[in-house]
């Protein structure tokens, strides 16, 4: 089954009409069906753009992507996030050089979030963004086009074919979508590392990627693009171990050696901070959700982003008609879904009794990853990097 939008879906249509129900019903099949119909190793048929802020686990994910024969990587678009663009851009270039894939265009993205000041995570990724693992200065140059422009060009060139894999703040994607109202309907899907329905990391509410640019994230969640969200709910269940490092060290390829070096430094960094388990492989897991969705379990949600909270900006909220483990009878479940509204905070002004409704209808826009098979994930990750 191949997934196609019958007609362009705009933000307004998406949030107000039932067109989106078609989207939601269809997108579960995107990555999985493409993969199974083409076979896992048929070679470079799944077009992706990787938007990233390397970043220790970004670097891992980039290496994994370049070692995944089913992907056709159309571009890598670094953005400011874990560290400033001055570092994420050369780090991305370093990774394409290590993997011998300098044929992949790398385009410089946004230096700052849409409206906020940049907050980085050098505390977790080291001052150079690679956990202190030092690699030579890259010789490769980025392409002339800015990231958002290149993203737009590629999606327009292959309408309905390109999946966006986002591993950092969503500034580049939001800029591309905002500047071209027809673009969202031409994107096949978006798989993000970001968000959480079970508490954040940089604040109790927000996961880092969404926290850095909540406004951009909100634009993306409301764009109508079928989204797969791989957030802290699952990524915090992944931990890199010394065994993984040993396997990588034994690998002969430059990729395996580079991955071993980054992994060793990252584990060391984690230990120096007193953590008892190794670093999470957030971004590689997001990429894996695209490569082999059967490794994770997903549920449908309408996800929106808090942009206004004094303490909670960047929190992802998953609206669902399901009440935890309390399951309803099928007909009551259907009723609950059709009558559910997306409700906002209670009014603050005296005399107002209307409960602010953000959407008058529940329409899922996101498949949220809620569980994973960790050993299958690591055998895919370490297996591909060390082979």
């Amino acid at each position, binding site marked *: 089954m191949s997934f196609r939008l019958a007609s*362009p879906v*705009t*933000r*307004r*249509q998406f*949030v*107000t009409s039932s067109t989106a129900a078609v989207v939601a019903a269809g997108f579960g099949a995107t990555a999985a069906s493409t993969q199974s119909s083409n076979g896992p190793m048929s070679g470079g048929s799944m077009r992706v753009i990787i938007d990233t802020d390397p970043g220790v686990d970004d670097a891992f994910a980039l290496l994994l992507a370049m070692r995944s024969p089913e992907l056709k990587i159309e571009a890598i678009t670094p953005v400011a996030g874990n560290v400033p663009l001055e570092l994420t851009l050369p780090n991305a270039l370093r990774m394409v050089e290590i993997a011998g894939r300098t044929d992949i265009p790398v385009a410089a993205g*946004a*230096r*700052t979030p*849409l*409206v906020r000041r940049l907050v980085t995570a050098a505390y977790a990724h080291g001052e150079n963004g690679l956990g202190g693992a030092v690699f030579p200065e890259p010789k490769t140059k980025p392409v002339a086009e*800015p*990231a*958002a*422009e290149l993203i*737009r060009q590629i999606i327009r060139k292959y309408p309905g074919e390109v999946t966006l894999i986002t591993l950092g703040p969503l*500034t580049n994607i*939001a*800029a591309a979508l*905002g*500047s*071209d*109202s027809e673009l969202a309907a031409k994107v096949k899907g978006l798989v993000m590392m970001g968000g959480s329905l079970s508490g954040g990391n940089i604040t109790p509410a927000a996961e880092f990627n969404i926290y850095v640019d909540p*406004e951009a994230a*909100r*634009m993306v969640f409301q764009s109508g693009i079928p989204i797969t969200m791989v957030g802290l709910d699952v990524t915090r269940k992944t931990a890199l171990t010394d065994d993984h490092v040993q396997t990588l060290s034994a690998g002969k390829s430059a990729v395996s050696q580079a991955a071993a070096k980054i992994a060793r430094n990252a584990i060391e960094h984690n230990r120096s901070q007193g953590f008892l388990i190794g670093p999470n492989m957030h971004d590689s897991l997001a990429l894996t959700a695209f490569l082999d969705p059967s490794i994770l379990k997903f549920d449908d949600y309408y996800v929106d982003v808090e*942009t*206004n909270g004094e303490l909670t900006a960047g929190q992802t909220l998953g609206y669902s008609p399901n009440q935890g483990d309390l399951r309803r009878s099928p007909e009551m479940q259907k009723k609950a879904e059709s009558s559910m509204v997306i409700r*906002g905070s209670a*009014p*603050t*002004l005296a005399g*107002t009794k*209307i409960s*602010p*409704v*953000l*959407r008058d209808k529940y329409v899922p826009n996101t498949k949220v990853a809620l569980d994973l098979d960790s050993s299958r994930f690591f055998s895919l990750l370490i297996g591909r990097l060390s082979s």
Partner: protein
Amino acid sequence: MKRRSFVVLLSALIVFSYTLQLQAQKIKVIVDQDARGPATTDMQSLLIFLQSDKFEVLGITTVSGDQWMKEETQRTLRLLEIAGRTDVPVAEGALFPLLNSKEESERWENLYGKLGYKGCWSDFSKHAHVSEAYRAGYHDPEVVPHLAEGEPHIKPIDESAAEFIVRMVHKYPGEVVIWAGGPMTNIALALRIDPQVATLAKELVLMGSGMYADNGGINGVDGRREFNWWFDPEAVRISMRAPWKKITITPIDISVKTNVGPELHDAIAKADTPVARYLTKYSEPGFMWDELSAAALIDPSIITGQKELYVDIDIDHGPSYGETLFWGPDVSLPSYERKATVQFDVDTKKLYDLYIKLMTQAPHAQ
């Protein structure tokens, strides 16, 4: 070389260099507009740019605001045909503000009270005082209704507005004036696609914001809640904090001192040109919001009073979402707040004379 041919060559060179010089003196401008039509303040300001020989219009970029962008683009293309300026490229811009939305504005109204004017989110059929050409009901973003002034034959270029802005400031570094007559979505996107936009441009000139709003604001709403800025507050925040060389603002405070009245209408009606006929048929009395901002670029002496103020916008999604923030020039503020030249007083006679001259002049040769 014979003496005579030398003289001919020399004078040809002089003429050529003079022409070049004239071309160089022209203001290279990108006109970013929420071009509701026909013959609104949006279109009349476009005509000022198209009719005046003071400008080299690099292109017109459209953005949703007074109307949805798709309809505006068609009306702009038709206007170019009427004005005989099909040489000017039109790039389609943002269809939606960055974060604000029709739904959010309705939620806001439920909490804080009715808004007077909501541009493309309004239902103009309920505005009894406007004439037939403008009394259309609300329509969806992609819908382009029948155009009373005629359907255009030309098309927009295959480039987004934000990308067009980025490309032009790189092509003519230090020379391009970006003029914004509508919400600032395209400009904000251009700034985030390429942060060099602000420093490469010559100047940002815009119609937007409200400070003291002598006339009590629009339709009784707070004078600091001006439509262009209110429609996309986040875009204004991005644009106002960018490192432009210069920012000039035409706020509603000065616009409400102007008026397209019967005298202007009658003076233009006397001319028999496609532009004059278009205006005579469709133009309505009203404030010269955008025309004033465009005309002051041609003749700065139209502005008789201005202030240097720090200007920004409230982007908290509460009761003051989209309201103008401003401070005097001598206060101590963080470095990200930027000063702008804000126009407050106008020589209306100069403005009206210039406007009539431009709107009645002989048509451009096609």
